[in-house]
């Protein structure tokens, strides 16, 4: 595997690679995140999205003083700041306090306007109802209310049928 490129300024592994064409001349630089603002060419370039992402994280963090850690994957402020990446889908919930601030710096809007996963939403809708019904069913069995349990079991089956139908269509 090729050795990772080194930063032209400090020799650390470079994560930013820029190419610029001025008057037909091609110029290339490789930079680490710390040196991205030192370079004259980088100053010319649109590094804003990256810089803005890092800034956004820091600013958001400083503003709220909150500490975040995802209960599902363990990703915390430190690891998010370092990598700019979350650890799992639930992080968006765990970091809800700073997510808008982070997004404001890099995205034109804060609300999703695109397509939605139709089948996923159906699954989610029925999933919630199924969980409720199962709970009812279990407690009915536990309390030996067998007639009620039979009703719940029927409802659960019907619900599963309707879900399969909805996904099919």
């Amino acid at each position, binding site marked *: *595997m090729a050795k990772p490129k080194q930063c032209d300024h400090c020799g650390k592994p470079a994560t930013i*690679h*820029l*190419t*610029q*064409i*001025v*008057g*037909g001349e*091609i110029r*290339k630089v*490789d930079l680490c995140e710390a040196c991205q603002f030192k370079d004259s060419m980088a100053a010319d370039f*649109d590094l804003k*999205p990256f810089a803005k*992402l890092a800034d956004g994280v820091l600013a958001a963090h400083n503003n709220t003083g909150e500490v975040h850690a995802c209960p*599902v*994957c363990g*990703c915390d402020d430190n690891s998010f700041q370092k*990598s*700019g*990446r*979350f*650890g*799992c*889908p639930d992080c*968006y919930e765990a970091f809800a306090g700073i*997510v808008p601030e*982070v*997004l404001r710096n*890099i*995205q*034109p*809007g*804060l*609300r*999703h*306007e*695109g*397509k*939605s*996963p*139709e*089948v*996923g*939403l159906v*699954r989610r809708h029925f999933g919630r109802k199924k969980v409720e019904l199962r709970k009812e069913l279990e407690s009915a069995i536990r309390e030996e209310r067998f007639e009620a349990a039979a009703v719940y079991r029927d409802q659960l089956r019907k619900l599963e049928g309707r879900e399969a139908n909805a*996904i099919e269509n």
Partner: protein
Amino acid sequence: MQLKIDSLIRADSELTHQNTSSVPIILMTRIRLARNLSGHNFPNHSEVEKSAEVFELCRKAIESAPEMGSPTTVRMEDLSTMEKKILVERHLVSPELIESTAGSGVVINGDQSCAVMINEEDHLRIQSMLTGFHLDKVWSTIDALDDSLEKKLDFAYSEELGFLTACPSNVGTGLRASVMMHLPGLVISKNMEKVIRAVNQIGLVVRGWMGEGSDASGSVFQISNQQTLGESEEAILKRLGNVLKTVRVQEENARSRILQTDQNRILDRIGRAYGILRNGHLLSSGEGMSLLSLIRLGADFGMFPKDTRCLVDRLFIESQPAHVQYLAESEIESAARDSLRASFMRKNFRDIPEPDFESAST
């Protein structure tokens, strides 16, 4: 030497064998969607066994999607460095994917117009591409493929933020559309920098031909959207499409100006490019790209037979370093590569007639 990806290299593919759809200025249109499975850590935060589990879940769903006719699946861990690089050069996987190994791979359809990467930065990077300028067509293909996958896989999605991705810069639609453009007119007339600056100002990015960090040899550039949240897929594609049409007009104008004001200089360059490709004995990949770029320009000017353009598009890919190593059937040094590349070009240009300088026009 028998390679796992032999069949991919030998097959007629969308980007290398599209005689009819190869057009001036625009090489290809590509869209990718970033998707993740709910209830699983993102690849960068995942343990090896979990990544393998995600790989299997995804692989089964992708292979059975109707849009993925005659799929080929490869795991990165099973490939040599050369094979991985060949996949990058064919635009089937990203340079990032070949750096990661744990449970990462790609499923590629029969004509290599769709490729779904597994366990790159996100669990899934769904990609679809076509030769020429076809944002709408590529979108409808990838939209359908996304729907098919969604039936089998539970995607991480929030009503407010859309599809959830490892990096917040992809959240929402997870969509990046990029169009690869051949812009020698703007480069020669020294206007490319202005174009890059203007395009950047409206939230679009310009990159070199191999994506992030690659250089702009051959005057080939990728222009793509950067933002993914707060706009629908259609709005993103429309905005990008409008900008690309403007860039295309600028390129056409630059070409006419060059032909009017500096005809001998440009015809000289095209003529020399032809001479070197037909007779050269040492050719670096950068020089190869530049010369091929001039031949493509000549074909657009009507100086070469029409199907020369498709030949150039194929050679753009097949003259890259890993493809040349494949020709050599072993990993060879760069000097040996240059000699082999030159002989490969001589062979391919043997039957291309001399440039018809009389008919040069835009």
